[in-house]
């Protein structure tokens, strides 16, 4: 099975986010970078498919050279090769533009299945997967919390509000990953894995290499852009309910406060 995983590098979830002087972007100097957790789930699911069906797992990513480290991490987990689209023209691109570039890279690989996170923990766009599938004219199934394939079809379980749906698609198809660490339990890179990863093939491509014109997927093609960032209102520590009360007294006082002051119960 020829499997592709779309991977985005994101700031560590521990990161404190600060707005840069331009008012439109975040300060990135002191950030630690990780594989977007949902894409890491996709790497894990891809490796399980490979274990079942054989084949290769190719990581397709975009961004500057720092992304190489995340691709190598995925390789250390067991992925076989990587493609990085590194082109300054993609800076300022919107999801349409980025997904066009990713789709072009995927097309060259002719995979049976593409897996990627349902969203990235940085800009929370939740757009990339369905858009890539649209450009490829493939079916896509979203938010998998269970995934299986017999080699010609893929089946997923998708949680929806108040229930769940089972979905099935004929391959080739794209699946976006939902769930959490507890569901996918992504494996750690082993030491031999880390050694091997260094020698695995990694291609760097520009938009021109993919036959794309920056005018159709770069900043000038963007339909939407961020014009300003703001911090959410800072939460203040409120009141500790104590007043020397015993447990029951505190419980009663909390009920009173929520009912009479906050008016939320």
């Amino acid at each position, binding site marked *: 099975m020829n499997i592709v995983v779309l991977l985005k590098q994101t*700031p560590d*979830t*521990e990161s*404190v*986010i600060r707005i840069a002087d331009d008012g439109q972007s975040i300060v990135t100097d002191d950030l630690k970078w990780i594989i977007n*957790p*949902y894409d890491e789930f996709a790497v894990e699911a891809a490796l399980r498919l490979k274990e079942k069906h054989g084949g290769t797992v190719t990581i397709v990513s975009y961004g500057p050279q720092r992304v190489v480290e995340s691709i190598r991490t995925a390789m250390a987990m067991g992925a076989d090769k990587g493609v990085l689209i590194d082109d300054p023209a993609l800076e300022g691109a*919107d*999801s*349409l533009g980025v*997904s066009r570039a990713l789709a072009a890279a995927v097309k060259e690989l002719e995979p049976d299945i593409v897996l990627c996170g*349902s969203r990235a*923990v*940085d*800009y*929370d*766009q*939740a757009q990339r*997967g*369905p858009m890539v*599938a*649209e450009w490829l004219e*493939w*079916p*896509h*199934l*979203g*938010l998998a919390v269970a995934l299986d394939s017999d080699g010609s079809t893929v089946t997923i379980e998708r*949680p*929806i*509000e*108040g*229930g769940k*749906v*089972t*979905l*099935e*698609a*004929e391959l080739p*198809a794209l699946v976006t990953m939902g769930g*959490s*660490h*507890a*569901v996918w339990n992504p494996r750690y890179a082993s030491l031999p894995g880390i050694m091997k990863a260094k020698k695995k093939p990694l291609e760097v491509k520009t938009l021109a290499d993919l036959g794309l014109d920056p005018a159709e997927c770069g900043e000038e093609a963007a*339909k*939407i*852009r*961020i014009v300003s*960032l703001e911090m959410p209102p800072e939460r203040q*520590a409120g*009141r500790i309910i104590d007043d020397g009360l015993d*447990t*029951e007294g505190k*419980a*009663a006082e*909390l*009920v009173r406060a*929520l009912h009479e002051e906050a008016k*939320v*119960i």
Partner: protein
Amino acid sequence: MADCVFVVAEFRGGDFRRVSYEVASEGRKIADALGVSLYGIAVGSGVTDKASQLGFYGVDKVFVADDPALESYVAETYVPVIASIIEQADPAAVLLAASVDGKDLSARLAARLEAGLAQDCTEVVCEDGALKAKRPIFAGKCLAWCEWAEDALPMISCRPNVMDCRDADATREAEVEAVAVEIPEARSRATGLELDTSGKVELTEAEIIVSGGRGMKASENFSILEELATELGAAVGASRAAVDAGWRPHSDQVGQTGKVVNPNLYIAVGISGAIQHLAGMGSSKYIVAVNKDPEAPIFTKADYGVVEDLFKFVPAFTEEVRKMKSTC
């Protein structure tokens, strides 16, 4: 000149979902600001009978695609049906729900229509005929204002539970127009739909959430939170620690890699307040923390804090809630 704003409604289990009324209300606001009509799109099986009710929330006219094959949301079938309706008009904007299906649909539809999509928005404003939308990024650690290019079709998905919902005006039925549904041959399908009929409140749409963390110590101890939740009509959530321990299903996880929630009241029990957890619940209107450690970071974000052993405090609190409810 654009002649309308579209809102895409979500139909499940025989009725529209509440978030669709929020989307319709927001759509009405924008349509009024732009001086255009508000059109609805209702897709599903058996949706025709309910369609006119979108009018109660401000929709002028509803285009209905009613077909048994549209029972469950599948991107490959929904997207072409909805796109073909939108393409008949010249909309100034398309609004959808940022629900599970809505987010998935929005993304693929945006590619199909080559529209600019602002996903999961919490505010939309119209300034001199131009739209601007605000959306949380980094799970709410920061907020981004987005604008569209001049030639772009703005698509906006609205976060559930955030936008104001109009009071239903039952005298205001919408005109309904059935569209001939042509469902393209699809390579994907829904093979099973299981709806939970227990009446459990969905986390992302709950007004009150009671969440438990590692301090709960064991799966069975969550029964005290369930009891409290029943008294309050609340949903039960969890920290990642509680989910990783196998005490709660993954669908209960609140945080940066779980659900982002925005209830009126969030009660964090035995949760320390890690940055990834705070990212998921920091926009709650009121936060209550119950923790035996007075230094727990959650107290710096809580409107009301109680430093107590949760196993003693929670049952006492439930009892007081019960008393209050019986006297109200």
